[in-house]
């Protein structure tokens, strides 16, 4: 059942569940933050509507800089703006930002510890028909490796909106990973959000859980749907929303591992270096148990609907159910 204390969307299991994109959540969150904080500036590399930065740009044209298709320079221009007391948000597709401009982010933003907010859209396989060249499956890995960086991957439109407002209040270099497609709204306006705090979204009625699923991003929906089906089969599952990947909520992850002894991680990203890797780094040292990793396994994507791709690359609801069954059988000795 859903964790009622978090005031999640009770219509999540209905087919009519409302859907909106995390990129839209970012766009609305940025606008709200910019109204309160006049130091916020925005830069975009010729994708202002696609990234939903247009909501901010239309309202604050003087604080918006259209830099053209120059993601590398954009990152460093933002560093210069931040050095002068501004709070820059830079937006493009994940494959270009933080992909194309990774070393500029490393040296001019993180090495300098400047408060630049790096916003992506179009992360993950869920980009769909655009194909593998545009499906960023590496961005969590290349951002979480950077000292000083905070990495957040919101699960839905509302969490993206809250996360954007939260990162507008901090001075850390931050990567916010957003996606293109409209996906189910899992949370509500009343669901709390705190950077660095993992939350249990789904839990058994009473007894302890047998398996813990840790998911990040909109694919969390698949994890919750899998848990619901498993619940009907009598398998007790807890689902954790790990939207902040760095800093990692190690206390919550270790507690979940202690309770369940079985962990499945779920992400729309390469398994290598992604959220599951971060979880395994934590558990290998603190509470070593067997983990099943749901994610993309050393492959590039291709054109297709998000559903076709989720099935082909093994991140669908049925893949998560299989992984849960596997992890239960494969008891940690």
């Amino acid at each position, binding site marked *: 059942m859903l964790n009622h204390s978090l005031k999640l969307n009770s219509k999540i299991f209905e087919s009519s569940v409302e859907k909106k994109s995390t990129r839209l959540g970012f766009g609305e969150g940025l606008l709200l933050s910019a109204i309160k904080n006049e130091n916020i500036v925005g830069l975009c590399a010729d994708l202002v509507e696609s990234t939903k930065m247009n909501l901010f740009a239309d309202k604050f044209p003087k604080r918006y*800089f259209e830099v*053209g298709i120059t993601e*590398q320079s954009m990152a460093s*221009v933002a560093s*210069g*703006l931040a*050095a002068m007391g501004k709070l*820059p948000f830079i937006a493009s597709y994940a494959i270009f930002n933080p992909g194309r401009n990774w070393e*500029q982010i490393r040296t001019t933003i993180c090495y*300098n510890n400047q408060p630049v907010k790096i916003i992506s859209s179009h992360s993950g396989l869920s980009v769909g028909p655009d194909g593998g060249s545009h499906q960023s499956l590496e961005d969590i890995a290349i951002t979480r490796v950077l000292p000083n960086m905070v990495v957040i991957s919101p699960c839905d439109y509302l969490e993206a909106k809250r996360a954007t407002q939260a990162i507008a209040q901090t001075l850390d270099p931050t990567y916010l990973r957003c996606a293109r497609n409209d996906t189910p709204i899992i949370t509500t306006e009343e669901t709390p959000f705190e950077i660095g705090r993992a939350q249990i979204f789904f839990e058994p009625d009473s007894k302890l859980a047998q398996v813990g699923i840790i998911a990040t991003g909109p694919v969390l929906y698949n994890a919750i749907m899998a848990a619901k089906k498993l619940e009907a089969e009598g398998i007790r599952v807890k689902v954790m929303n790990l939207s902040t990947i760095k800093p990692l909520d190690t206390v919550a992850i270790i507690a979940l591992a202690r309770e369940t002894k079985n962990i499945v991680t779920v992400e729309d990203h390469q398994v290598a270096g992604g959220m599951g890797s971060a979880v395994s780094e934590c558990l290998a040292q603190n509470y070593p148990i067997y983990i099943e990793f749901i994610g993309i396994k050393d492959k590039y994507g291709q054109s297709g609907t998000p559903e076709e791709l989720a099935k082909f690359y093994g991140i669908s609801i049925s893949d998560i159910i299989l992984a849960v069954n596997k992890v239960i059988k494969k008891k940690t000795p």
Partner: protein
Amino acid sequence: MEKISGNRLKELRLIAMEIRKSIVSMLQSAGSGHTAGALGMADIFTYLYFEGLKHDPHNPKWPSRDHLILSNGHICPVLYATLAHVGYFPVSELMTLRKFGSRLQGHPHREYLPILETSSGPLGEGLSQAVGMALASRLDQDNDKNIYCILGDGELNEGQNWEAILLAAKEKLHNLIVIVDRNNIQIDGQTEDIMPLNDLVLKWTAFNWHVTEINGNDIKEIEKAIYQAKFVNLDRPNVIIANTIPGFGVKMFENNYLWHGKAPNKDESEKAIFELDERINKIMTER
């Protein structure tokens, strides 16, 4: 325009030579580092920190200061030596260059030396940051602040510079003054052999910048170009193509690309200091 007096000019030329002596000594002590570019730029750094820049060594974070971004961070010995000679920290600290625990990292790092405006070393990234600072300054309607950016010529191979050049021109950032160290060498050889830059004046002009070409080892020419950029050209960004002699001041280092990324040993350092002292004596006896 203001003209520095004959006496002041002589003083500045002497300071530049003293800075060169520090550069040679600190590099010899470090045992590695970049000699030629640092020596070649000593006159420009001397003019900027002793005349041209609005700054205060006793108040490094003075909000009204001009900002200087050193993009080609590998020539940092000239930046460190100038900062020390102008009073930001003791000259003796220069001998800690590149050593463990030093504030003077092999390439500048703002975390270790917070008086720096930025960290640098990886090439091609300084101009974009300077553009960001110039944009911020304009947003704040700070009309008295100039943003200076020093670029190497080899560094112009990096595509990111040309992205920033486009943006600065689009935004008409007249508060931005770029100085290109046109010394014609990079680590693997002559710039025109490694990756021909050809006519930089034509290139920057085509990108809609104000362009001036000077002898970067002549303080009077440096002064004139900076004055022009600060007070006359107020509609577009400014670039000064400064032709310098790499290794200027020490014959064995001059115009030899092998000295781009090498530090002098004890013997070479002693010879270099001897030659620089001779030059100092010569300047002092000029009438």
